């Protein structure tokens, strides 16, 4: 049923869905934006952490006495205990706060630790070598796979698919600045959750000497800008707790940001996935059975079964077995669309190879099986649009065909994501001078949240964007959920729309007598409040607000809210296509073009939405070709915990990227999150394009060495 809270229809939107320049652009592009790492508080100390040089060890003894006497050192705290087990290189042992960064580094060096070095496992790709660290963790059967694979009318495709772990490598490393005043504490946190880390910290400090009076309400969390999280920055983390203790101990503000090697070793990891997959399909392309034996690691806790078969979930006969492999490497943290990029790679890879075995174009094969998906209509629209934008018909050729040493190929993949909106409260205040204040305890990770809030409020009030003052990134504002899982935009847009409509209703009541109509006859457009259907009866926004006399209007809107509009939904689809060039002499893969067709319901901020998709594709170019955590099983160490050899793509590595947002068709569903969805298919699409180019399957990352090895193994070198 239509509601006054619903977003305006397409022909009435002046800001929603338009290309609007982001609000946080000027402060970022001039270096004025202050991140946690940039905070310099009066008298502030800088802290550094000692972390484990071993992948697996027990602490026999720790001696911090020399560190405590070191020049400039004001406080030392232990983060592990004697007899404590360290399960990965980089595990936290102690932290030192000193007057200068250099003195803190010296202090850390003076901590003496004796270790009992224990056996470790840091590599999991070869399941035969993981021993007792591999534990069967899941087995699922549906239908009758044995019978389906044995049927005489099916073609069976069998292959091995591998995708390694990656690390988040946030440019602003994890960390905080903590400052105490009595029992009250301010945390400048590099976080995706200003509403959560204060409670986490209070809980961690409860029962610790000197912190008995600390409650969650004593802790204020501030995050105006945040230098990258991608799912890895929800917790206060051990180093946040250590910073709080150091600060209390020293009686001064303390900044503790991870060093780059620590950031790469332990502050972010996307699980791996390896699988032997069999698919049975009829000659016409109909998939009838799936069989997979998979394994993965998420570090010390092992790795979970990815959601396979992915998107094509309704394959009637399925058997899945999974082994979780515990490795002595930094623990998994959520990475954009946890487990989905891997699942897309495994499924779309195996499907592409099945199509090749059937001598079918994978585009036709995917279209043929859309009845096995939950949103066939979305994928059909997107695959057809993608094929047109990629010029698929003229570029596709059977896998491995083509002459010369430089081979070209195209590949495709699909993805999905939920993105159910998180809870959110928005407070809108209209002042008698006409200014509008929006307050919300959310955070803008750089995805455009500020801009989205301003667009929704300004659209509702018929005002220009700059008429809305947006205040976020502070736990004292009305609570809003953590920014993860693409839950933010749906939640915050809805609470803002509802608060704005409620506030506007109040304003209409105040000015209705002046315009000699009832409040329900009024609208707000183009900076005026006017009578609907009679634009001559109007007053400027400013004049209307002046009618408030000396009192403000202050209204709170909430998500969820029953009977207050159809403002959001969950569940989207995306289809990506990639074109690559593979040099079969050097093994170098170059991505030439990527087409990303993405649905996310109603788009609020088109420009920043497109940037999310561009960014996701670029990250996929990185992790498909360059990013590789290189471990040495002999020593248990990561050999490239730095940015020189843990490679991100540079500006010259980026292909032509065509982003097509599906607008209009699914607007009535409301707003659906977009952070995760475009991060799902591109790696699989690039990997499938490489397969199309050279006719053999290469594990991700598809480094030159791996491409050459796959060519040699496949007899194509």
């Amino acid at each position, binding site marked *: 049923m239509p509601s006054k809270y619903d977003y305006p229809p397409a022909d009435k939107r002046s800001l929603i869905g338009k290309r609007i320049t982001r609000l946080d652009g000027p402060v970022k592009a001039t270096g004025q934006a202050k991140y946690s790492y940039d905070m310099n508080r009066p008298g502030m100390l800088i802290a550094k952490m000692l972390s484990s040089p071993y992948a697996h060890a027990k602490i026999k003894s720790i001696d911090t006495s020399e560190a405590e006497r070191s020049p400039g050192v004001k406080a030392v705290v232990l983060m592990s205990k004697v007899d404590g087990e360290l399960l990965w290189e980089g595990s936290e042992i102690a932290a030192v706060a000193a007057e200068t960064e250099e003195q803190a580094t010296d202090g850390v060096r003076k901590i003496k630790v004796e270790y009992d070095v224990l056996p470790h496992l840091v590599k999991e790709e070869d399941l035969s070598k993981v021993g007792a660290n591999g534990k069967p963790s899941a087995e699922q059967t549906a239908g009758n796979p044995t019978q389906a694979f044995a049927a005489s009318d099916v073609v069976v495709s069998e292959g091995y698919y591998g995708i390694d772990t990656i690390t988040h490598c946030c*440019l602003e490393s994890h960390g905080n600045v903590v400052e105490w005043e009595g029992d009250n504490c301010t945390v400048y946190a590099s976080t995706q959750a200003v509403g959560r880390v204060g409670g986490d910290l209070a809980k961690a400090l409860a029962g610790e000497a000197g912190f008995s009076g600390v409650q969650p309400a004593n802790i204020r969390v501030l995050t105006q800008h945040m230098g990258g999280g991608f799912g890895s920055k929800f917790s206060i983390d051990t180093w946040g707790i250590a910073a709080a203790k150091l600060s209390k101990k020293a009686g001064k503000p303390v900044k503790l940001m991870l060093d780059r090697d620590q950031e790469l070793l332990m502050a972010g990891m996307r699980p791996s996935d390896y699988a032997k997959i069999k698919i049975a399909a009829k000659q016409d392309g109909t998939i009838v059975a799936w069989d997979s034996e998979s394994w993965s690691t998420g570090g010390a806790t092992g790795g979970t079964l990815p959601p396979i078969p992915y998107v094509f979930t309704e394959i009637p006969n399925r058997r899945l077995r999974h082994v979780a492999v515990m490795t002595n490497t930094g623990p998994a943290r959520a990475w954009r669309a946890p487990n989905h990029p891997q699942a897309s790679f495994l499924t779309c890879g195996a499907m592409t190879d099945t199509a090749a075995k059937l001598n079918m174009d994978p585009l036709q094969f995917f279209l043929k099986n859309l009845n096995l998906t939950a949103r066939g209509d979305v994928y059909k629209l997107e695959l057809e649009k993608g094929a047109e934008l990629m010029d698929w018909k003229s570029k596709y050729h059977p896998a491995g065909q083509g002459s010369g040493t430089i081979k070209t190929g195209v590949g495709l993949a699909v993805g999905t994501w939920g993105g159910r909106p998180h809870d959110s409260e928005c407070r809108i205040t209209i002042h008698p001078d006409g200014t509008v204040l929006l307050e919300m305890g959310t955070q803008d990770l750089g995805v455009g949240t500020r801009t989205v809030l301003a667009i929704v409020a300004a659209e509702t009030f018929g005002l220009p964007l700059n008429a809305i003052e947006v205040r976020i990134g502070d736990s004292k504002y009305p609570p809003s959920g953590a920014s993860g899982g693409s839950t933010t935009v749906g939640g915050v847009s809805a609470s803002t729309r509802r608060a704005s409509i409620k506030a506007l209703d109040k304003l209409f009541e105040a000015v209705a007598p002046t315009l000699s109509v009832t409040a329900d006859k009024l609208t707000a457009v183009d900076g005026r409040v006017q009578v609907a259907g009679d634009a001559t009866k109007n007053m400027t926004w400013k004049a209307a607000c002046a009618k408030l006399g000396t009192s403000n209007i202050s209204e709170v809107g909430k998500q969820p809210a029953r009977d207050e509009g159809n403002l959001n939904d969950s569940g989207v689809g995306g289809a990506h296509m990639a074109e690559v060039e593979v040099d079969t002499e050097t093994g170098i893969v170059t991505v030439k073009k990527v087409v990303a067709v993405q649905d996310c319901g109603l788009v609020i901020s088109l420009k920043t939405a497109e940037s999310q998709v561009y960014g996701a594709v670029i990250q996929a170019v990185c992790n498909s070709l360059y990013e590789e955590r290189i471990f040495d099983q002999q020593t248990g160490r990561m050999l490239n915990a730095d940015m020189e050899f843990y490679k991100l793509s540079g500006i010259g590595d980026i292909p032509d990227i065509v982003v097509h947002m599906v607008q209009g068709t699914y607007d009535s569903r409301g707003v659906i999150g977009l952070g995760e969805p475009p991060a799902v298919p591109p790696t699989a699409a690039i990997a499938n394009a490489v397969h199309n180019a050279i006719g053999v399957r290469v594990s991700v990352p598809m480094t030159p060495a791996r491409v050459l090895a796959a060519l040699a193994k496949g007899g194509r070198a």
Partner: protein
Amino acid sequence: MESDNQGKPSQPAKKGFSRRSFLQGVGIGGGAAVGLSNELLAAPQSGSGARVVGPGPVRVALKINGRVHNLEIEPRVTLLDALRNRLDLTGAKKVCDRATCGACTMIVNGRAVYSCTTLAIEAQGKDIQTIEGFTTPAKMHAVSAAFVENDAQQCGFCTPGFVVAAKAFLDRHANPTMADVNRGLGGNLCRCGTYIGVRQAVLDAAREMRGGRRA
């Protein structure tokens, strides 16, 4: 460590004390002792008059954005840490701390440098320009304006480094092609994936700086 008289132009970069040239010396010499004896230790013994300073704090004068700042810092302090930790100039970011990612880019004597791998004492007598020196939200330089317009930032942590590197690049290459931009900004890394916007921003800024109109 040694230091020339404050205020005088220092020796060419390759004879200086950046961590990178130090490391190179080690690599070429095959050992720290060899590298040190060539570059550092031999100088005072040769009677050249050069002064040994440190390891404690020494007075360092830095000319930043046209203004001289006097600091008491240890000779090992990098230019980046001197500005971020002592002068609250935090536009340049500390990210890789190893001259890889360019988030710390500053312009020293007209050239883009990685300030994380430049010692503050070595930057004495040089003209140091940071992002704070040429662009503000109220009066944006053409490069910043083009970054905003082209949505060439997401989290924004790499952005100041890119803006400074782009300005230094455009100051020397007024009319670049896309391929030139790819090479000229190849020393900066972004994690969110803003390169599409960055490329267009640099091309737009070049046109603006030449006095041309935007397409």
